[in-house]
Structure formats: C-alpha cells, structure tokens
C-alpha cells in the first residue's frame, strides 16, 4: 500500500513538473492557415472536458490568447487545439513545430459543453468551429443519438474534420461559400431548411461571431434552443478582469467563467460584435510586424 502511495505521489509530481514545459508533440496542417497542435500538458488534460478552453502565451512576454480544447488524452497527458492564423500571435504559433515549446498553457478554463437531456441535436460548425463540435459529435454518437451536422467553410480546402464528422453524424451537410464542395451557400441556408421540416431540441452553433449570430436569428422563431460558444477577447480567463463580458438576458456575464457557451437567443450580439473588434487596429499593426503588410 505504501508503494501505491509513493507511486501516486511520483505520478502527480511528474505531472506537475511536466506541466512547466509545454512541448508541442505533434502539428498537422488541416487546411491553409489552420493548424492542429497536440500539446504535452498533463495537468490540463487530466481535468479537461470538451467545450472548455485554454489560454496560451507563445513566448515570454507575449499576449494571452484563448483556444477551445478540441480533444484530450488523459493517459498520455495531451491536449489538442486548433488554431487559425489570423493575427500576430497565431502567426508566431504557426511558425512553431513539433518539438518546440510554448511559454504558458493554462486550463482547463470555462464550463464544458452540456448537451445532456437533449435527444434531437443539430451541430453547426463554421470554419474552425468544427473543432468544438467534433468532440460533441463523438459523444452523441457514442450515446446512440448521433447528431445532424451542418459544417460550412469558404471553400472545399477549408472544410476540416470532414471524414470524422461524417462518421459520427446521422446526417452530414457540408456547405461551401463558393460551391466547391457540398451545397453552395451559408450554413444558415441549410439550418433554415432543416428547421422548416423537422423538430430539433437543440442547436449547438460554433464559429465566427457573425455566423453564430446568423444561426441564432434563423432559429429565433423556432422553439429550438440555440447554444453558442462565445469567442470573446480575454486576458486572464479566470474571471478577474471583465474583458470578456457579454450581456445575456439583460445581465452581464463573463464568457471565461459563466460561459463560454450561452443561450444564443439571449445574447446581445450587437454589443458583443463591437467589443470583439475593439483591438482590430492594434492587431493589424502587430500582424504587419510579424508577417509583412497583408492584403485585407
């Protein structure tokens, strides 16, 4: 019995020590400017649940940025995140490869996705929103209630996890803006068609804010519940600064501790949009420093 205690103690201590170095164990380019990273973070992996997020700092003195946890392996102690290169910090991250380390990796933060109690589920993913709905598809499929999934991207190359989503969904509807794959159009076109002909208990919609707002609006007059995952600007991620505040049902909530998922129909999206674009000018400046001037 004493050996078991010593063994467990060593395991925890080793986990804590390993947590000090966050090594990228694997990196996969899923699409242009979309990378999948498997990070060595055993403490984070142990308690992480789908829907939660991490905050990372690429290098000492860098910015704190949140990313949703896409997958985790508790035995190996790894966490998987998807990162789209959109600005300075993500550009820095895109330059790193397996074997490189990142300075800080904090989590699991926020509340996990909770779709328990729902039978007829629609998952809607836009762009790298697929990273958040993919683990839910797996869970629902395992529970015997495979979801109906709508995934959208600008073009065929940016449609991620297509095979995986097809496997775990009862029905799978890929959409592309340019029609290069699946149906041509936005995810909202398909969502509206589905809602017109079938009853759903809940829609989990994850993607760029305008997409989540659009899906919510299309479903507004339908009794279906809409859950969205707010990608608000954050600093600490633990509820101490209020940067990520969102008005939900007339009350101020923090996306980092009350969310990141909320009832879409109660969110003041107009306010959320202005808050999200507050640092756009700074981002563009910083981005130019890293990558050179970009065409808008």
């Amino acid at each position, binding site marked *: 019995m004493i050996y078991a205690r010593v063994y467990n*103690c060593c395991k925890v201590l080793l986990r804590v020590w390993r*947590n000090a170095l966050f090594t990228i164990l694997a990196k996969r380019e899923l699409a242009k400017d979309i990378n999948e990273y498997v990070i060595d973070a055993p403490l984070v992996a142990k*308690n992480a649940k789908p829907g939660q997020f991490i905050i990372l700092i690429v290098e000492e003195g860098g910015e704190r940025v949140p990313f949703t946890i896409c997958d985790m392996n508790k035995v190996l102690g790894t966490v998987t995140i998807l990162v789209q290169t959109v600005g300075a910090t993500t550009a820095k991250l895109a330059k790193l490869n397996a074997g490189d380390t990142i300075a800080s990796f904090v989590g699991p933060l926020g509340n996990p996705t909770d779709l328990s109690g729902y039978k007829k589920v629609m998952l809607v993913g836009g762009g790298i929103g697929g990273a958040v709905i993919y683990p839910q598809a797996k869970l629902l499929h395992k529970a015997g209630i495979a979801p109906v999934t709508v995934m959208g991207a600008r073009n065929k190359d940016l449609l991620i996890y297509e095979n995986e989503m097809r496997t775990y969904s009862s029905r799978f509807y890929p959409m592309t803006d340019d029609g290069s794959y699946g149906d041509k159009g936005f995810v909202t076109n398909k969502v509206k068609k589905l809602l017109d002909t079938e009853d759903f208990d809940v829609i989990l919609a994850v993607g760029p804010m305008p997409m989540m707002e659009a899906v919510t609006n299309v479903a507004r007059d339908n009794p279906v519940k809409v859950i969205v995952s707010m990608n608000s600007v954050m*600093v600490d991620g633990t509820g101490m*600064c*209020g940067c990520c505040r969102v008005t939900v049902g007339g009350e*101020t909530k923090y996306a980092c501790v009350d969310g990141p998922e909320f009832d879409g129909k109660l969110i003041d999206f107009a*306010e959320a949009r*202005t808050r999200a674009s507050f640092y756009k000018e*700074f981002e563009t400046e910083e981005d130019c420093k890293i990558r050179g001037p970009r065409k808008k």
Partner: protein
Amino acid sequence: MAIKKRNKPSELNPNVRNKNFEEVTRVFTAEMAVNEADRCLQCKAKPCVKGCPVGIDIPGFIAKIKQSDFDGAADVISEANLLPSICGRVCPQETQCEALCVLNKMGEPIAIGALEKFIGDYKLARGTKVEPIKKIGRRVAVVGSGPAGLTCAADLAREGFEVTIFEAFQRPGGVLTYGIPEFRLPKRVVQNEIKMLKELGVVIKCNVVVGKTILLDELLEEYNAVFIGTGAGLPSFQGIPGENLPGVYSANEYLTRVNLMEARKEGSATPVYRGKKVVVVGAGNVAMDSARTAMRMGADEVSIVYRRSRKEMPARLEEIHHAEEEGIKMLLLTNPVQVLGEKKVEGIRCIKMELGEPDDRGRARPIEIPGSEFDIECDQLIMAIGTSPNPLLPQATPDLEITKRGIIVTDENGLTSIPNVYAGGDAATGAATVILAMSAGRKAAKAIKESLL
C-alpha cells in the same frame, strides 16, 4: 526645544515623472536614514508597534539604524516582516504606525515607512545567506502567490516544510505584480523578494489554476495542508447603462494589461487603449494607480470621479498627493449614472452628490442631488470601485464555506470549514492591504505548524 523636521526622501519632478514609469519616491540615503532614526524618542510605551499589523519592533530597528548597524536593523525587521521593501512602499503608514507616533502630535512623525524601505532595499542589495534548513518531511500547498501566500510559504519553508505555491498567472506576485504599478512598486523589488523565497526552497508553479487545473481535493491527496491566498480579484462594476461599451475597463483589466502584460512597453504584444481623456471612477489606491497610469500612457486629461468628498477618500494620502501633483483632476461628490457612446465610450453622464447620515459601516451616505446631471467627455473609462473575492475556487469546492459576499469563512487562525485547509488575505477578509494579508499568512503558517507537528 524645537522639534527637528521629518526627513523626506526626494521625489521625481511631477511633470517629468507623469510620462514615465520610474519609481516616484526615492529611497533614503544612509545619511538621511541615520538622521531620521536619530529623531526617534525611543518611547518606552512603543505606541508605534501597536499600530503595526505584524508587530515589528519599530524602536528596535530604528535604534540599529541610528548606530549605522543596518544588518542588525534588517534582522530585527525580519523577525516580524519578510517583505520590508514592499511594505515600506505600500503600507498606509499614516493610519498605522506613524499615526500613533508621539511626534505626530507635532506634525513630524518618524518616517517609519521610509526607514523600513531603506532597510528592505539594503537587505535586497546585500543578499541574504540562507543556512541549510533541515526538512521535516511535511508538505504544504499554497494557492496564490500574492502577499498572503508568499509570507505563509516563507514562514513554513523556514521551519523545514516542503512548500509548493500554485499561481494562476504566468508570473508570481499576485497584486504586487499585476496591480501595483512600476512607479510605486518596481517589479525588480518583487522579483528579488521572490528569489529569496526560492532560496529558502519554496517551489513556485505558475500557470496552474487551482479549482480548474487541479482541484483542492487533489491537492489534499498529496499535501498535508493547504493555504488559500487567492485574493479578491473579482472586479465590481456599477451596473449602469452603457458600461459594457468598448473602452470601459475594470481597473483590474487596465492594470493587468499595463503591469503584468507590460502593454506600457514599446512593441508589447498585448494591446491596451491609450485614452486621451480618461475618467477613473473611485478614490482608493487602485483608482489612483489607474489614473496615474493613464497619465503615463499618454493621456492629455485624467480625472477621478468619486461620489463622496475628500475626507472619505480611502487612498493613501501620498498617492492622492502624488496624483494631484501629476495633474490628475479630482471631481468629488460626483457619481456616474450612464456611460455614453455609440461604438465605444464617448462620455459619461454624472450626477452631483451630497453627504447624508453615516451608513452601517460609519461612512457618510452619498445622496444624489436631483436635476444636477451633467456630462463629461471621455474616450476611456476605468471602473476602480472595488473588488471582491474571486468565486472560482469556492465554486469548484462545495465544502469550502463562504459568506454571501464570497468571503471564505475562517477561524482566528485561518482554518476553513475543511480540515487542514487554511485561508487568509483578501480571500478571507475582502479587499484590504498587503500588510494584513501578510499577517494572515503568518498566522496560518503558525497554525499549520502547530497542527502538523
């Protein structure tokens, strides 16, 4: 016989210092320190000691300074206080030790804070040789690396405990690092104090959020006791219309961006809005820190808006004095009722206030004067109206008893509702001072030692 005047450390020129982050108040020279120590009457009754939350033997260390025995003075102080460089800078001495100094009656109290800072900095520059400490085979986890956690950890480490501090942020120090600005508490001072802690054998693990990354139950499986020093990091907002407009910051967010994330530095990866006309709501130390920081970040105009009058302002007198010298305007008996703006904050609508009867905490109740609304133009608004304990850890730990206001319930030694789990500092009192947090850390360390040995 005329009383000799109090020695004052020199200060940077207000119109120069309000554009940079250099420490405003210089430290005593050795000569000034000895001179000031010489003024001390060495009262038998030692009233000053009664005013110190950790009971430093003030006449004792001052006597050593008078003899130019600075090492001796450092030894006297470290019996009660491990962070003199910090306390000498941030303690509200005017309501503590210096308030009770008998020379206060003549308006020339001993500059106890400045003397403590002098010895603290002397000690840091000299370095401290740490004798090897015999480990006693007991392990304690400390949650939070602010003043309460750092003090508890240091005291336990000195007694041979193996201590690990878990810190949520990427750098330790808590409010000493993210909250108090560089020009009031240089970060090299905080880093040096933490270095001394590491030399005592304390291990600090950053980027770990207890309650998320590790649960309290999991800590209790591996450690004999836990001390919670998670502070009061939940910002208060007024709840007025327009408060969520971009450009409206909590003081926590503003200061964390500028201090911890170093947004004040050229080429920083973390953005912060540099307002030209900034309004700060509140009149505590955090409000003064926010206003003075905004000035340094390039504002043309910075105003404090406070609903009570000058007499009720909670900030240290030195901070208010420095803020006014630096050009910050004080709009007293004024309270915001609405934040104005379309895509971002453009101004605030305020109402004039008058003072009524004292409330249940003895502070004059502010009452709106109907019809006295007026607008102030601003492009950045910082809410510095107080903080309360962050609910993250209690919410993850249902057995941890807290009050309605989120304060962790403890006995006089810091013991919580969970056996072997202690708490102290702002997490157990609500927002207070660095020195009180240290005192709580000290009490808890003593209780932990007594319970485990």
